[in-house]
């Protein structure tokens, strides 16, 4: 293997761990990064609006913005995953499967702990799915390097 080829064999681990996708080198990666940023901005706007506004209508609009932002990222990822080659898609879907499992485990745990009124868990724990997806992306891609 030449030095250049050795360099090529490396997956973009930083992007996979931090951003959760293969970086912004491809046009699809660029689009996903822009849509991710838009999602975060929409979510933050909704969160701030829900706490800031006094009008019930504006609070309602702000609250609705949060799930809408998640819908945007779902759409963005569906488009992105379709654009990947078969191995990249396999890596992404493996990581999605792991994070889906984590969300289910956390959701069931929240329900179970709340059921017995013992140390209730915060719903925000489901956000752990994202770092777990990043870690899973890292290790799965490493196994194909």
């Amino acid at each position: 293997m030449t030095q250049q080829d050795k360099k090529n064999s490396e997956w973009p681990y930083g992007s996979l761990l931090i951003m959760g996708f293969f970086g912004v080198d491809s046009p699809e990666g660029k689009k996903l990064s822009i849509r991710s940023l838009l999602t975060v901005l929409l979510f933050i706007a909704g969160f701030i609006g829900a706490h800031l506004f006094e009008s019930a209508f504006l609070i309602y609009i702000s609250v609705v913005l949060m799930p809408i932002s998640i819908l945007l990222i779902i759409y963005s990822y569906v488009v992105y995953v379709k654009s990947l080659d078969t191995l990249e898609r396999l890596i992404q879907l493996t990581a999605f499967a792991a994070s889906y499992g984590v969300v289910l485990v956390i959701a069931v745990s929240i329900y179970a702990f709340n059921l017995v009124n013992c140390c209730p868990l915060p719903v925000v724990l489901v956000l752990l799915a994202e770092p777990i997806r990043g870690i899973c992306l890292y290790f799965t891609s490493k196994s194909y390097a």
Partner: protein
Amino acid sequence: MKNRIRELRARHRLSQADLADKLNVSRQTVNAIENDKYDPNLTIAFHLSFLFGEPVEKIFDKAEFLKSIGQDSLDEP
């Protein structure tokens, strides 16, 4: 599956990046296929066959495949 892609690529003076561009996959995917860490799909296999001018069974190790499905030759069901 073991294969001769690295050898054929060198013969055609292609880098992994060149081959990845021709196959429309990532460089890392070409590397994973060469290193026997990932078996490509039919589209990539036939594309490789077309690019290198060799039949698929001469690019990929048919004996290893037959062993993996518990067969000695394709003649026996």
